[in-house]
């Protein structure tokens, strides 16, 4: 009889919580010395996933670079809510130029740093560019692709909340099918955002064969911190795409932000993986895939799918997309894995 290893849910994982971990194993966020790069007092909505994601990511990047970090920010919610001057929430050198040029501005910063270092006038400072999905997958896409293609020493972080939230929740190329936005209203024969459109930029980033591409969600702090830390240990162009639920745009409760992000991952709607030089190297496995309905139902942007007569066919199409992600990225944990 073969032995089957028994794994208790919590042992060997970080879910035991910080108290039972050695200090060096604790998350950056759990560290009293964390930088709080995006400090409290900003003007994000309650439960804003983008604020959470940025805080996690930039603190981790600061930790990984010995606080030698400069950030370039695209126009969008993160930029607007963080710098209602004369107040700024940023504890790091930070620049906002335009909506569509964060990647290029970061390239310029990296170039300047390189020359200064060469001349002995500056240290090893690293660069992060960040923007929303609109600023990344749409208007900033040319600059992003250029930065990738040149393999500039920049980590670009996209905070994907599936729409142009700062201008009042309009459709972007990252808005998922069927979702209601101000420009894809739940009207007509195909209510909400149409199917067979949009793009998944992590896959396009991989096609540039850059050293590192990863996806993450705000539901898994450990994974997010690990990926940012890893990215900062690599030179060249890197891309992390973080799913950040937006209570305002999604019509979800403020306290459900992390739950929504977890459901996006657990349903296969949002594949969480990392890739090196265009090849997927690891995925966050889904133990028991949940039906997409569990993810869709709490969100008002999908309310039109759950009226008196649920839009069964549409829900099935979304389920098919999630299933495809699970197949494509091999997300389902095989027995014995977790």
């Amino acid at each position, binding site marked *: 009889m073969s032995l089957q290893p028994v794994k208790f849910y919590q042992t060997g994982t970080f879910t035991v919580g910080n108290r039972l971990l050695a200090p060096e194993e604790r998350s950056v966020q759990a560290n009293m010395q964390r930088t709080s790069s995006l400090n409290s007092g900003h003007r994000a909505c309650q439960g804003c996933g983008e604020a959470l994601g940025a805080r996690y990511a930039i603190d981790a990047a600061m930790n990984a670079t010995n606080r030698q970090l400069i950030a370039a920010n695209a126009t969008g919610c993160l930029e607007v809510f963080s710098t209602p001057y004369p107040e700024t929430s940023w504890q790091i050198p930070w620049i906002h130029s335009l909506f569509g040029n964060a990647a290029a501005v970061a390239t*310029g910063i990296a170039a300047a740093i390189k020359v200064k270092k060469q001349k002995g006038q500056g240290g090893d400072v690293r660069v992060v560019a960040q923007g929303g999905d609109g600023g990344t997958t749409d208007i900033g896409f040319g600059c992003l692709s250029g930065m990738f293609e040149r393999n500039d020493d920049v980590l670009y972080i996209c905070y994907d909340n599936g729409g142009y939230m700062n201008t009042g929740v309009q459709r972007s190329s990252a808005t998922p099918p069927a979702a209601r936005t101000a420009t894809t209203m739940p009207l007509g024969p195909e209510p909400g955002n149409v199917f067979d459109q949009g793009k998944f930029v992590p896959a396009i980033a991989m096609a540039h064969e850059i050293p590192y591409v990863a996806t993450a969600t705000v539901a898994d702090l450990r994974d997010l911190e690990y990926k940012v830390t890893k990215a900062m240990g690599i030179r060249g162009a890197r891309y992390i795409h973080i799913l950040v639920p937006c209570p305002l745009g999604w019509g979800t409760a403020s306290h459900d932000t992390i739950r929504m992000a977890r459901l996006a991952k657990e349903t296969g709607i949002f594949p969480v993986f990392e890739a090196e030089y265009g090849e997927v190297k690891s995925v966050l496995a889904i133990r028991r895939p949940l039906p997409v309905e569990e993810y869709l139902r709490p969100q008002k942007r999908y309310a039109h799918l759950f009226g008196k007569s649920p839009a069964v066919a549409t829900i099935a199409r979304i389920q098919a997309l999630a299933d495809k992600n699970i197949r494509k990225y091999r997300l389902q944990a095989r027995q014995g894995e977790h």
Partner: protein
Amino acid sequence: MLKQTEGSHAVAEAVALCRPEVICAYPISPQTHIVEGLGEMVKSGDLKDCEFINVESEFAAMSVAIGSSATGARTYTATASQGLLFMVEAVYNASGLGLPIVMTVANRAIGAPINIWNDHSDSLSQRDCGWIQLFAETNQEALDLHIQAFKLAEELSLPVMVCMDGFILTHAYERVDIPTQEQVDAFLPPYEPRQVLDPAEPVSIGAMVGPEAFMEVRYLAHAKQMQALERIPQMAEEFQAVFGRAIGGLTHSYRTDDADTIVIAMGSVLGTIKDVVDEMRDAGEKIGVLGITSFRPFPIAAVAAALKHCKRFVVLEKSLAVGSGGIVATDVRMAVTGMGLKGYTVVAGLGGRAITKKSLHALFAKAGRGELEPVTFLDLDWQVVNRQLERERQTRRSGPAAESMLRDVGTVASKIA
């Protein structure tokens, strides 16, 4: 050192002597030879401690420049025409943020219809973008103005465009005096930024500013340009002290002392105008020229002073304010408000149309007789225009206008009178 070289190459050498730290480049005629020259110098190691970045668009070029300049690096780029328009949002952003980027604009027409030849529509479309705009008359001036541009930009924390006529200057081989590194170093101190992205002293740059301070921030940009009005002439003197050449300044007067008619222009056409003026002077005409080097800031007082004793002025400009008339002329008229002068606007040389001595002779003579229209289009082929207008009267589906007019002209090569 005296050297027979191409205008673009002279500019590339001047920029290299300024020890730029980041150069970003996207190709567009007639700017290409400048950035190609610089790229070569960086790649060969002749220009050290400089990053040369081949970007994917002009919008990226200016955006990269914004990032590097904000990180304290001396930054240069060059563009023209469609390229300048493609980067406009970032052009305004660079000046709004107060970043001392230097950019060459190899002046070229703007389409449609697409046209690669010279006029001033591109930089003049950016009249109000907040950059200082200096126009070169010769290749020597183009070269020298770049050295002054870095100093001016960095002193004032304002970006500077050095505008030089595409092809006419950029592709012309002329003798130029290329300064030594020691001379440039003596004139241009290392860049000391007012604001810099530095982990040792974190600042936030580019925050949102509402009605409470926006007017003041914008006024500051204007005030800086007013400072530039004072600094530009001083800088020309400082330049002369080191390099021994009188280059730069706000305006240049030529034979204007007792002139009844003063012709005002910018860029390389000044050379042709001066030749015509010499010939007219020989014939006893009291005519002179005022060249404008600094278009932004516009030297209102200097222009007014230069025109003080004349009877009439002719603004000859390679640009058109469609639906209004002249762009430079509007500023000149503002400068001479209340002086009781007769003023003429002449739109000339659009899209590379040759401005000949013959046409200028006739034009200035007509102005002298008081017979010039307030707005004149020099050497306009009325026949071609009228035929097109007639065509449009006759049929609704008259087709693409530019193509029909080209067919009427019947030539393929550019028309040189």
